[in-house]
């Protein structure tokens, strides 16, 4: 229950995000899409929030891979028959950016026909289930973003059609009076 309460009381943006950034993005998107009314603004916001969520998911995926890299390197070193304690020490040095450790790892990988992309690949494999879940979530957010845009197009088209038919109606009244419209309506009912 505490978790649910916490959930409902928490703010919409994350600790690492600034509300200003979201506002800037909103302004930019509105400048591009130019919503004409509140309805179009709702669709604009839908696309904005979905693309915001997509960015978050991309950051999550990146973080997951980065976090899996030390474990991936350790796994590779262990498979290359390095002693456990030595491997742990080397991974720690490699993470801290020690040039000696970096070159030692590079040499070791090269000697076995590998390069640093092997570490990335291993990290990918380690968090593959999470990455595929994140990709699925991204796909659904992309669909929501696109639906927001198509909703905006739909409402704009309907409003434009309505304006056009009003104008046509006005023109019709000016040329032949209101009788023609009612005739048209009657003909439709006869069918």
């Amino acid at each position: 229950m505490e978790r649910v309460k916490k959930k409902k009381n928490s703010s919409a943006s994350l600790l690492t995000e600034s509300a200003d950034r979201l506002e800037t993005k909103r302004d930019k998107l509105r400048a591009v899409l130019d919503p004409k009314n509140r309805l179009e603004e709702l669709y604009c916001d839908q696309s904005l929030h979905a693309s915001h969520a997509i960015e978050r998911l991309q950051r999550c995926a990146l973080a997951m891979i980065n976090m899996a890299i030390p474990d991936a390197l350790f796994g590779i070193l262990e498979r290359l028959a390095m002693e456990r304690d030595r491997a742990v020490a080397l991974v720690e040095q490699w993470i801290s950016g020690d040039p000696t450790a970096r070159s030692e790892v590079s040499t070791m990988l090269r000697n076995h026909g590998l390069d640093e992309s092997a570490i990335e690949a291993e990290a990918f494999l380690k968090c593959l289930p999470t990455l595929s879940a994140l990709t699925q979530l991204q796909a659904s957010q992309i669909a929501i973003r696109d639906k927001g845009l198509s909703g905006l197009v739909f409402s704009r088209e309907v409003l434009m059609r309505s304006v056009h038919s009003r104008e046509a109606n006005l023109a019709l009244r000016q040329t032949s009076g209101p009788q023609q419209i009612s005739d048209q309506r009657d003909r439709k009912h006869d069918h």
Partner: protein
Amino acid sequence: MTTERQIAANRANAKRSSGPKSRAGKARASQNAYRHGLAACMTMDADRISAMDALAREIQASMRGQIDRAGALAIAQAELEVVRVRAVASALFAEMPNGFAKDRPATGSQGSEKQAARRQGTAEKPGSTAGDLAGLKGLDRYFRRVHAKRDRAVRLALEHLSDPFGINSQ
């Protein structure tokens, strides 16, 4: 086939554990299946009603009377539901860094323990990344539902605009 002995054991076990007895325990247990409350209909308290009313007015005003009051209210209500789902999704996202910290693969023996736990499905618990991702994935259907509801409300409200003279209507 179930033996008499098994039936007796089941009855004895059921007597030992047949749910909470106290009122507080029952109240707490009644919330066991509660996750985010999105499956329930949105309760319309005074704040929500005023928010819905304000949004409906904004929609009507910005459309220069092209949408009637009932249509605007339906759109506003559906939009509040969209906002509610969005808030829960954001909150779930906010909890994910905690899950990252718990799930962070450690080098050496800790890493293999973590993998073993993952294999046993313990990483699916709430608070873990996998658990939060499953929670986010579970929100998909609510997102779809509320967006579809709002789109329906918009279509209904705009229906008369696409054919203002009823010429093409059946």
